[in-house]
Structures are given as C-alpha cells and as structure tokens.
C-alpha cells in the first residue's frame, strides 16, 4: 500500500499517519501552508503541500498513491451561515473525489462522523442499517458533514472503491486542536464550571486509526462502519475523570434548552469577535441529538475495538499533560 493521508495534521489524520508509519508503510501526508506541523514532523511522513480548495495540488499529492485516507474536509469554525458552509464543503470534497478518480486511486477511505447517521430518537442503538438522513435542527456542523458524506456515497455508487467510517467522539493522543479532549483538559485544569449532559459515544483515537487501516487492507469492505466503542453520557465521563484524576465535578449542570440558547448567543458573539468559543455550538448540537450506537460491525468486520475507556482517558490525559495543555 502507498497511502496518502489528507489531513495528517489533524487529530484522526495524525493517528492514521502514525499507525501507518509504525506498520512500515511509506506514508505521504498533505499539509496546508498554515498547518501546524509540529507534531507531524516528529513522526516523519513525506509531507506535501496540498489544499482541498486546489484540485491540482491534490492530484500532485496523489501521484503514485493507491489509497487515499480522507481525514480532512471542511470543519466550520463557527456554526454560522449554513448554506455557505455547506456549499464550500461540497465544493472541496468534490475536488478531493475528482482528484482521486482522475488519479485512479484504488481505495478511498472517508472519515465521516456519527452525526450524519439518521436521528432515531428514543433509546435504541443506531446501526449502519439506519443509514444517513437530513440532519435534525439547523446544525451547521451536522449539515456540512452530511453534505460531504452524500457526495462520497454518490462517488462510491458510481464505482469508486471505498468505505465510509462514521467516527464517534474520539479521545486519545494527538488531539492537537483539543476537540473531544476538551473535557479532559478543562476538567483537569478545573476550568469547567458548567456542563450540559447528553448521550455520547467515545472511542480511542488509536483504535480509530487501526480501523481505517483495516478498511484499506480489507479485500472487500462494507460501504459503512460505525467506528465507536463506549456508549455513555457526558456526566458519566466527567464523573470518571473526576474520580480518576482527583478533580471536582463542575458545579452546575445546565438544562439542555438553556445551554443551547446560551451557546447560540456565544457562537454569534464569537463569530463577530473572531474568537472561537470555549464550548462551540456543534458540541451542544451533538448532545441535543446525541445517540448511542451499535458498534459490533466494525469489531467483527474490520478491527476489534476494545480499549477500555479508563485506558483511553489515561492516554489522553498523559498526552495533554506532556504538551502542557494541562497545567
């Protein structure tokens, strides 16, 4: 396998690059001019400049590669301007897909999110069979993810060989931009005073990387796998962090409705001030429409994801501590 990882400077992409290098594959990773490459340079993939806005740069990056791991894709910095954000997401994923098709890429592995899966409501476990559906509410993040995945499905139905991995809340080493790991850092630094509860599923970032590689190597993978592990709640996670690292629980639990309204106002204020808010609206949307997942298909078909949540938390905590996110 001669893999290209698009988005190797991000959380999941970094873990894929690292796992590929550990297995001895000659890994190439894209980076943008503005990318933080501090962590990626340490593990020494071949770095090539490419941008999802620039199809020619993607084709150059794909030259000589037979597998593309697409772990980038538009992530709206602010949950504002749904139509514009979706249009941009579609345009850029089309650039990647068309570059892959024109380059004769043999396998396209697309990192998507569980947020694209049909919102079933109730308490039942959502599985791959539920498929994806127009996202509920007016979540910009959900809409962007859904639109990108729809484009990938279209390409796969048109004959491209590939797999979609719907990844749950990822925790572990390499959370450079502090995504889901925000819970660990804010709790450990005792700066999380309030929280919103909701259903969530967590998975170890290194397990996610292994599932991606297994999907690339599988002779005949399924079209879709839910890459998750632990069905829990935010309060369950926070209680575990509190006990494990001897830090207090946040003082206040906000009701979902009040939390959403407060977050919506802060998001718009942050957008105007060009400052990303500490709890972005997409996090709240993930809890508003949080679901639990049946993750058996990935375990039986691709990779036996089984890292205990306590171990994943320790890996995440130690990584953030080492790199001074935790004071």
């Amino acid at each position, binding site marked *: 396998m001669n893999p290209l990882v698009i988005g190797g400077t991000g959380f999941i992409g970094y873990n894929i690059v690292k796992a590929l290098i550990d297995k001895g594959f000659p890994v190439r990773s894209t980076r943008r001019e*503005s*990318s933080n490459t*501090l962590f990626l*340079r*340490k593990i020494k993939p071949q770095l090539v400049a490419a941008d999802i806005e620039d199809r020619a740069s993607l084709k150059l990056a794909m030259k000589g590669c037979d597998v593309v791991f697409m772990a980038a894709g538009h992530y709206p910095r602010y949950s504002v301007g749904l139509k514009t954000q979706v249009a941009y997401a579609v345009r850029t994923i089309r650039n990647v897909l068309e570059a892959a098709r024109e380059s004769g890429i043999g396998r396209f592995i697309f990192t998507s999110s569980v947020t694209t899966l049909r919102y079933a409501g109730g308490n039942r476990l959502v599985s791959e069979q539920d498929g994806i559906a127009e996202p509920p509410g007016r979540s910009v993040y959900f809409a962007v993810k859904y639109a990108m995945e729809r484009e990938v499905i279209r390409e796969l139905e048109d004959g491209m060989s590939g797999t979609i991995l719907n990844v749950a809340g990822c925790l572990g080493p390499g959370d*450079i931009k502090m995504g889901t790991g925000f819970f660990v850092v804010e709790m450990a630094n005792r700066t999380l005073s309030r929280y919103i509860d909701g259903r969530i599923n967590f998975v170890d970032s290194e397990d996610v990387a292994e599932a991606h590689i297994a999907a690339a190597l599988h002779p005949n993978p399924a079209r879709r796998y839910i890459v998750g592990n632990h069905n829990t709640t935010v309060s369950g996670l926070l209680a575990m962090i509190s006990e494990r690292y001897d830090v207090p629980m946040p003082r206040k639990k906000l009701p979902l409705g009040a939390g959403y309204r407060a977050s919506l106002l802060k998001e718009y204020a942050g957008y105007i001030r060009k*400052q990303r808010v500490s709890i972005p609206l997409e996090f709240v949307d993930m809890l508003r429409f949080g679901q639990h997942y049946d993750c058996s298909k990935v375990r039986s078909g691709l990779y036996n994801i089984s890292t205990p949540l306590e171990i994943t938390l320790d890996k995440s905590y130690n990584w953030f501590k080492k*790199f*001074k996110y935790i004071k």
Partner: protein
Amino acid sequence: MSGITREKIQADVLKIIALLGETKPEQLKLEDRLREDLGFDSLKSMEALSRITELYDVDPELDEVMELKTLKEIVDYMVKTLIK
C-alpha cells in the same frame, strides 16, 4: 547553521508573529507574551511556533517549545538551537 545571526532570526520571528497577529513587526515588543499581550490562543501559538521552526528546518523538542511564552523566549530558543 552558518550565516544565521540573532538579528535575522529575530526579524523572522517578528515577521511571522505579526503576520498571524495581523499587525506590523515594528509594533511588537520582545517582552510581548503570545497569549496575554497578543491574544493568541493555543492553536495560533502552535501555528506560530510551527512556522518559525519550519522556516529554519528545526525539529524542536515539543515539550520545550510549548513552554515558550514571550517573543524573546522564542528568539532565544531559536538562537540556542541554531547558533551553537
């Protein structure tokens, strides 16, 4: 690395910080702290350090560079690494 002077490193550091901070190099002071004085969040701070070290092809010890807070500390780190 030959031909590299402290002045050149300092000028490059100020240029990159000014670019990311949307200001002019002459408006920056070496005592400025990335977060408190220039308003950089952790992501922008890392992007700055990434660009500076990449410009000089320096492979930094990550736990060391994460400790750098002021522009002077960044310049000193680069000088220490490049001018032995």
